[in-house]
């Protein structure tokens, strides 16, 4: 196929449909005898106490913020990694490498800051 993205679109479609096949087949073959006790929440085998959709304290939300910064900025590193190998006589490859390294160091300064601030401790 000429366009890889059309192929990928078809692939995603079929890839989503194929896992449905065993579930649909099981729905046809398996017995269906629901009752309220069988359908109650299992949890750990003991009857559920209180509301199930409860709130938890997500202690790692600071990690999540740091992750967000890194995840966005690593995307910029992929083009850099490709540009490093580009055959361009006008620029020295070492020059491109140093530029990327400066970018990574700025990125790491953020990590060092959060680390020194004590935000990477489990509180």
């Amino acid at each position: 196929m000429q366009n890889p993205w059309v192929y990928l679109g078809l692939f995603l479609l079929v890839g989503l449909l194929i896992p449905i096949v065993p579930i649909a087949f099981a729905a046809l073959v398996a017995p269906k005898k629901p009752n309220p006790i069988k359908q109650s929440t299992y949890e750990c085998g003991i009857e559920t106490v209180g509301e199930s959709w409860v709130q938890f304290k997500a202690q790692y939300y600071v990690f999540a913020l740091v992750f967000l910064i890194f995840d966005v900025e690593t995307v910029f590193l992929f083009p850099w990694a490709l540009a490093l190998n580009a055959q361009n006589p006008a620029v020295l490859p070492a020059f491109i490498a140093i530029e990327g390294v400066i970018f990574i160091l700025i990125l790491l300064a953020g990590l060092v800051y959060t680390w020194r601030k004590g935000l990477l401790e489990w509180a």
Partner: protein
Amino acid sequence: MNFWTDPIKVIYDWLMITLTGWGMAGWLADIIINLLGIIVLITAAMVLDILLVWVERKVVARFQDRLGPNRVGPFGLFQPVPDIIKLIIKEDITPAGADKVVFNLAPILSLASVIFLWAVIPLAANVYGVDLNVALLYLVAAGAIGTLAIIMAGWASNNKYALLGAYRMVAVMISYEIPMIVALLIPTLLAGTMSMKGITLAQQEGLWFVVLSPLGMLLFLVAAIAELGRSPFDLSEGESEIVSGFHIEYSGMKFGLFYAGELLHAFTFGAFIGILFFGGWNWPLPWGDKYALIGIFNVLVKGMFFYWVIMWVKYTVPRLRIDHMLAFNWKFLTPVAFALLIVTAIVHAIFKDMALGVYGLALFLANVLLGWIVLEILRGNARQQRAAEEAPAPVAQH
């Protein structure tokens, strides 16, 4: 070009001539042939998945000094068949309080996210779904869908333990995606392309990337195990603490899909290690780059080997506590990964136009040096901590 060197092209041409001979439009025939190819590829992956159930059960039995399945067929090889029959004829229970749509969608997405990865795996030089020029980014994106499926399962189950498991999975994901992306940047940097086929070709012409970047391979292995949610990072399941994490409420075939997805995911990442760092279709048998069947065999052998390594880690190392896991990532893996990226980039830029031997030696030595420095820093820290703990407590004055 004949059937043995490029089977896909030969079959494609033959089907194209047949279908257009029946009077079908060219573009329609193209789509139908590609659909057939996709279905064959995914079915092959599913059959492999069924075999993996047996492999997993047999290997875990050997690690635990048991025999494992050995009744159904030779060496218990047909054991997965009764397993699947059992899963299919089990009653499918949806808990009363669950969010039905999300609950049923989660196992489908969980397996689908793994199947998506098979679109970009180059099984041999000419046998692959599609040669995307951004395959590595696609890999990360498809991995995120798997995490999403786990969060959906945990949230929709209407169950505190499942929700806790899903939260933990978020913690693992937000941690280990960074070292994973950086580990993926290293083959990109060395090969100058993000396409899996291009990376394999670069290793075929030069050196394997495991020689150029052994530390990168180890980083990718650790990040992959975390991404898979396998022990020692299986906090989202944690049988002994939160029953079984995100899939407590699932029964029958829906649980089966989670299980199948996990096994195939592990094998797929094993294959990725083989392709990105160990030369893909080039070894152990010769002519893997010429003959398609030999290439497929080589990729599967490497995938199986690294799948075994992942199992080896799983059944050897105990589960980490969540704060240890986050600290291990943010205070160790992430700095090491970025240091490795910096070193690799500079050494690569300086030495890439020199002779292959000099280039390889320089990168390898740089990796060894970095690894040694990291180990020394770790050893120094451990010594300090030990000294702090062993210091005699100040005697109370009377």
